[in-house]
Each structure stands twice: as structure tokens, then as C-alpha cells.
């Protein structure tokens, strides 16, 4: 009953004309981002974060969240049409989705992707509404040592699930933690690593770092190499063969359950969810069926899984203040900039924000379904936007976005430095996402570490005495060791 009353509050917040407008802008931008290969939601949210500073926290979160789950919808379009995933989470959709397109069933594949995404998104939103309350109640009983262990667990998962060498991902997390330690500590003390620069006394800004590492690095990469995918013609026919609709629906439900569960885990998210859902469908398909034969299950399951995971990844963010993946880490940074400290108190102290976001997710998913099906052809046209116009305009937006935050030209220097660093890291085979995760969690980890040590009079065994923190640390170590053994 409480959930219904809260949802009513959420809908009254989300259905205001302004919030409906921001939700629409967010999902449309997300769709565009998902369709364009190379520009992911991390880059877009990093670029658009400064635009939201003049909005209220609720409106900003509704718009940014719309970009996130909208990109999960759009990512499948290029995967199906040109075998090029617009989003990492749509990678497995290429296999059967593009096979369907080659068979002249592109319209059906796109329709299955849209409807499955809607099912995953809607049921995922339900999971957020149902599970956030109990999880927040559990989080309220967490002590400082438990929080440190929980964040260490999130970082360990970030390392394990990162692409490439595990040691490099570990180094990236540590580098992010160190960058997050620049400036004055929140619990008091002199500024660190500022080299006498007063601009660094408050630490490195999240926006210049994110815009540099993701946005500018992406642009430098694109300037170096030109990508020119060829678009194949899509048929407008969307009706499925008899029996296929039922198979697609069942696969969507399986994918949704798996995606919703994996999205909640720190370090999890849409990418892992889609791969896991596809793996399950391959096991369930008949033995003589090739994984690339164009089965609707191969499109429905990963698409529903990645959308469900995109929704449920908000649960650890809003209840524990722990980002489960880099996009959510960016949203966490955005919330902090707006003066909202994510954690269990968000639900009780800012119910409009929390339930407004949940209601907007439902509305956003319905909007996506309504605009996705008729506009499939138009989204494909976006692939033809010439880079010679797109790149300089994006750099100009990066400049004004970074400067507009604090009107401090020094932040542009920081953004440029992180842009070059991000490009260098890519060339060295290092993923910048774990760095961002470390940077975001640096301050809360340090804060809770200091608190835990103060409470225990400097005794480091406090982390082993608390059963929850000991268990979480043991799981983190076990995860890292097993992943290292697997990759060796």
C-alpha cells in the first residue's frame, strides 16, 4: 500500500509538464546516443551534465536517467542494421539481430528489440520500486566499516568485470582513488597534492575529469581514425511468424529476470546482463541451431536484460550510494553536484526525487516504445551525420560546459589534460571506466575509513571484527583471486 502511495507521489512529480519535457529530451538524446556508434551514454552524460546545473535535482536526474535507458534502446538499432553495436550492451544483439536483418527481417528484429526493451525496462522499474525500500532499511544499519567493505567490493567487481588485463584495471581504480584524494579531506586536514595551486584546494572537479577522460578522449580517437559504417536497407515489415511472438515473450521474461538481478550488483550492469542472457538462450535453443541463425530469442533476451539491468542499477545508487557501473557513477557525481547525497536517506528525506525518478522511468519506457517503432528509419539516418561537423561542435560544447560550471578557466586546462590522458590510456589498453569508479568512491571510502578507524581507536582489525564487513572483504578478495586465476 505504501508503495502505491509513493508511486502516486512519484507520478505527480514526473507528470509535471517540465519533468515530462526533460524525460522526453533525455530519452530522445539517449536514443540518438545509442544509435551513434562510439558515443556512449557515459560520454553523453559527461558532456550534458553541466547543462543540467540550472535544473532542479529531480529534473536533472530524470533527464540524465532518460539518456541512460534511452541509449539501451537505441544501441540495438545499429547492431541489427549494420552489425555495429551503438552501445556495448548491444554487442550480442548483433549476432542474431543482424542475422535476421540479412534474412530481410530487419523490421521484425527491430520490433522485437523495442518490445523486449520495453518489457525489460518496465519490469525493471517495478523491481526498483519493490526492492529499494527493504534495501534502504538494510543500508541504514550499515556502519562505517561496512561501507568501506561494501565500496571495496564494488571496486573489486569493477576490476573483475573490466575489459583487458586485470592488473591494469586495478591500477586504474587506484589511480582514480588517488586523484579523488587531491585537495582537502572532507573530515579536516591540510590540502594534499595541490602543488600550491589554490584551484586544486577543493580537489579535481568531477565534470572536467569526466568530460576529459570520456568526451575529449573519444574526440581525439575519432580525429585519429575515421569510421564509416555502411547502412543496409531495412524493411518496414514488423509482424512476427506464428509462434515467434510467444518465444520472444518468454525469452524477454527470462532476460528481464536475469538482467534485473545482475543490474543490482555493484560492478554489474547492462553489458554483463545482456551477455549472460544471451548465454542462457543459447543453452536453451535446440542443439542444431547455430547461434547466428537469426532466432528471435537471441534479440529478445539480451535487449530485455540490458534494459532491466539499466533500471535496477539505480537500486544500489539510490539506497547505498554505490554506483554499479560507470554511467551510474556519473549520475552519482551529478547528484552530488546538485547537493543530493545518495544513500538510504534519499527515500525518506527526498521522496519526490526518488519516486519521481521511478515514475519517470515508466513514462520514459512508454515514450521510447512509442517513438522507437515508427522512427526506426530516421534513427538509422543519424549514422550519416558527418564527423567534420559533429566533432568541432562537440568540442565547443565541452568547453562551454566545463567553463559554465564554476566560470573557472583552469578547469578547461584540467579537462584538456584528462582528455590527453584518456586517449593515452586507451592506446595503452587501459579502460578509463574503473578510474572514474575509483575517483567517485575515493571521498566516501576515505571518509568512512577515517570514521571506522576513529571509532576503533586506530585498530585496523575493526574491518574483520564486523561480520558484514569481514564477509564483504572476503568475497572481494575471493573474486579478485578467482578472476586472476581464470585470466592467467
Amino acid at each position, binding site marked *: 500500500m505504501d508503495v502505491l502511495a509513493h508511486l502516486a507521489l512519484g507520478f505527480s512529480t514526473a507528470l509535471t509538464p517540465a519533468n515530462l519535457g526533460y524525460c522526453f529530451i533525455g530519452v530522445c538524446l539517449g536514443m540518438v546516443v545509442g544509435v551513434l556508434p562510439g558515443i556512449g551514454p557515459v560520454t553523453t552524460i559527461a558532456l550534458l551534465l553541466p547543462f543540467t546545473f540550472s535544473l532542479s535535482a529531480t529534473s536533472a536526474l530524470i533527464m540524465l536517467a532518460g539518456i541512460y535507458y534511452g541509449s539501451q534502446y537505441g544501441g540495438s538499432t545499429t547492431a541489427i542494421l549494420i552489425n555495429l553495436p551503438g552501445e556495448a550492451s548491444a554487442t550480442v544483439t548483433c549476432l542474431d539481430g543482424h542475422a535476421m536483418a540479412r534474412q530481410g527481417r530487419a523490421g521484425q528484429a527491430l520490433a522485437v528489440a523495442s518490445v523486449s526493451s520495453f518489457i525489460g525496462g518496465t519490469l525493471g522499474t517495478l523491481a526498483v520500486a519493490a526492492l529499494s525500500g527493504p534495501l534502504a532499511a538494510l543500508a541504514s544499519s550499515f556502519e562505517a566499516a561496512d561501507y568501506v567493505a561494501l565500496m571495496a567490493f564494488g571496486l573489486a567487481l569493477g576490476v573483475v568485470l573490466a575489459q583487458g588485463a586485470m592488473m591494469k584495471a586495478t591500477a586504474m581504480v587506484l589511480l582514480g*582513488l588517488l586523484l579523488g584524494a587531491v585537495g582537502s579531506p572532507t573530515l579536516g586536514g591540510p590540502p*594534499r597534492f595541490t602543488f600550491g595551486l589554490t584551484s586544486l584546494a577543493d580537489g579535481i572537479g568531477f565534470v572536467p575529469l569526466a568530460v576529459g577522460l570520456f568526451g575529449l578522449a573519444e574526440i581525439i580517437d575519432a580525429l585519429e581514425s575515421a569510421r564509416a559504417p555502411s547502412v543496409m536497407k531495412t524493411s518496414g515489415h514488423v509482424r512476427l511468424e506464428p509462434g515467434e511472438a510467444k518465444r520472444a515473450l518468454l525469452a524477454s521474461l527470462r532476460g528481464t529476470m536475469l538482467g534485473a538481478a545482475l543490474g543490482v550488483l555493484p560492478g554489474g550492469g547492462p553489458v554483463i546482463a545482456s551477455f549472460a542472457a544471451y548465454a542462457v538462450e543459447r543453452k536453451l535453443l535446440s542443439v542444431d541451431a547455430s547461434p547466428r541463425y537469426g532466432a528471435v530469442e537471441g534479440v529478445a533476451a539480451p535487449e530485455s536484460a540490458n534494459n532491466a539491468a539499466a533500471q535496477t542499477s539505480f537500486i544500489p545508487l539510490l539506497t547505498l550510494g554505490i554506483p554499479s557501473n560507470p554511467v551510474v557513477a556519473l549520475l552519482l557525481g551529478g547528484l552530488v553536484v546538485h547537493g543530493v547525497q545518495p544513500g538510504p536517506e534519499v527515500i525518506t528525506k527526498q521522496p519526490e526525487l526518488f519516486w519521481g525518478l521511478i515514475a519517470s522511468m515508466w513514462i520514459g519506457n512508454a515514450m521510447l516504445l512509442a517513438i522507437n517503432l515508427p522512427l526506426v528509419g530516421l534513427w538509422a539516418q543519424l549514422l550519416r551525420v558527418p564527423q567534420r561537423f559533429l566533432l568541432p561542435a562537440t568540442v565547443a560544447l*565541452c568547453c562551454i560546459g566545463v567553463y*559554465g560550471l564554476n566560470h573557472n578557466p583552469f578547469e578547461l586546462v584540467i579537462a*584538456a589534460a584528462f582528455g*590527453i590522458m584518456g586517449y593515452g590510456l586507451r592506446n595503452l589498453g*587501459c579502460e578509463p571506466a574503473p578510474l572514474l569508479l575509483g575517483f567517485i568512491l575515493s571521498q566516501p571510502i576515505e571518509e568512512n575509513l577515517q570514521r571506522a578507524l576513529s571509532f576503533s581507536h586506530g585498530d585496523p582489525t575493526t574491518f574483520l571484527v564486523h561480520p558484514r564487513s569481514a564477509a564483504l572483504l572476503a568475497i572481494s578478495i575471493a573474486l579478485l583471486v578467482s578472476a586472476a586465476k581464470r585470466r592467467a
Partner: protein
Amino acid sequence: MGLSCLVVGTLAIALTCSAEPSSQLAMALLFPRIVAGGLILSGAVIVLRAPPHPREGVQRFSLWPCITIAGSLMAFAVLIETAGLVLATMTSVLVVTLARRMLSFWQALWFAAWVAAFVALMFIGVLGQAIPLVPRF
């Protein structure tokens, strides 16, 4: 990569060791020291596990796009408070177009003017940012 981690970690340790000892300071420097120690350790492991030919798996580093992007941001940083948003944005766009032969000079100038007009309308007109539009004399 490993060497960079070793250098950054060692530098961080050195910087935190040079401070005067006090209980508040010790607490403030504890976390960076732990992280820097971890960074040195991971850097050492990366170096020890590095392949015999260190260039393997490392892509070519193109300097020119980095210079133009950094130059574009620097130009914006220098010009924004003196020359105003329009000139800063136009210069920034023109510098980026130098990265690759994207557009002819006149095309670039026309496009830069268009982008400047858009950002001026968006940021000053719609979002009401207190940024000077034109040079201050």
C-alpha cells in the same frame, strides 16, 4: 603503463612524507599513502609481467589531434573572459578543424559562426549563464 604507476605512486608517497607529523595530518595522509602503496605494487606487477617486446598491444599515439584539442580548450580558456563567448567559441571550433582536413577555411569560419550563435543562444539566452557575449573594452 607499469612504469607510470610506479612513478606516480612513488611521487605520491614522497609528497605525503615531506609533511610535518601530527595526528590530524597522519589521518589525512593515511588514505593517499595506502592507495599510493597499492599503485606502486600494481605498477611493479605490470612491469614484471610486461611482454619482452613492450610495444606489443600498444597503439600508435597521434600527437596532432591531442595538440589541436588541447589548443582548442586553451584558446577558449584564454579568450572567454576577455574576448567573450562568441570569439572564444569560434576560435575553439576553428582550432579543432585544424586536426584533420575537415573543412575549407571559409566553411570552417561559417560553421564556427553558426556554433557560436547556437551556444550563445543556448547558454546565455535560454540557460541565463553570466558569461560575457562580446569583448569587454
